[in-house]
């Protein structure tokens, strides 16, 4: 675990990915910190709408990403966990052991 962390910080610093969009109604992004994500996939299993997937990125690391078909409707597809007025139960964030995934709203 320590070696992995060392490698991440010294050899291959990660990046922050913002998946989603901005339109007239606001900013709707899922933010992934690749430094904190080790590709464990717990968030993928927790998501009731199958929004997430684990990919191998351009720098050959396993990391979580949003499925292509959901890039443009994040606001609506995440609505189950983040409805307009009822209390929120954001399952992917709860499932992640390192806080790698978050929402901009």
């Amino acid at each position, binding site marked *: 675990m320590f070696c992995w962390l060392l490698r991440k910080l010294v050899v291959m610093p990660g990046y922050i990915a913002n998946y989603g969009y901005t*339109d*007239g*109604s606001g900013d709707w992004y899922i933010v992934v910190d690749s430094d904190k994500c080790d590709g464990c996939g717990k968030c993928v299993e927790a998501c009731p709408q199958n929004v997430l997937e684990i990919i191998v990125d351009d720098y050959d690391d396993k990391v979580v990403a949003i499925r292509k*078909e959901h890039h*443009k*409707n994040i606001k*609506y*597809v995440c*609505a*189950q966990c983040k*409805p*307009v*007025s009822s209390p929120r139960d954001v399952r992917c964030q709860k499932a992640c052991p390192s806080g790698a995934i978050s929402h901009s709203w």
Partner: protein
Amino acid sequence: MITAGIDVGAKTIKAVIVKDNKIVARSMNPTGFEPVVTAEKTLEEAVKQAGISRNDIKKIFSTGAGRKSIPFADHNVTEVTADAKGMNYLLPSVRTIVDIGAEEARGISSDASGRVLDFSKNDKCAAGAGAFVESMSRALELTVPLMIEISHKSTKEAPINATCAVFAESEVVSLIHTKIDKADIAHAVHDAIASRVSSMVRRIPIEKDVALIGGVANNTAIVEAMKKHLGVEIKVPEKPDYVSALGAALLAAA
């Protein structure tokens, strides 16, 4: 008591006159570039239709995108409030209202007395609203009524991915080039809009009865597609474009 409601929409302006809780006149005109002038004209037409004089109207409430710009309105109300009130008058069993206008779509959850409990909007984006339908009809080089007609004859699915009316227009053009039947494209267009509006509506609790209003509710292909996506029976009142204006008129009488 006689009251009037004026719905200043992005595409059309509607006026409804209510006398002692009964609808006595309805009138509509394209908004054009001078909404105040058009609103005045539309109200005058409704007045004539009702066989009354302008001074008989006790109160005028405005609603719609341009509701704050009408100088002769006594008060303005939000579209959401007006929709819920108008719908409650026409069909009191309705608890979920979907209003698809020219440039905006709304999902409203209301109670038995027509009060708004919750709502979600798809605003400031032409996708998932009437402007999308018009944009696509241009790309298909068909009138909107013709596009609706052939859409019912579709036999195959055609893919339309775009969540933007501008991108969808280019997609449709390339689909036509690959010789896909226009009927299938038309069907896919309606399906795409319904899918988008349904996702928006699912942000609020969906309870029967569900109604569809707004100008786009006249589009039978959209109604079909919405039923499929939401998985419920959908009621469309007579003259669905006027529900907002009706609601405003009723609120003026309250």
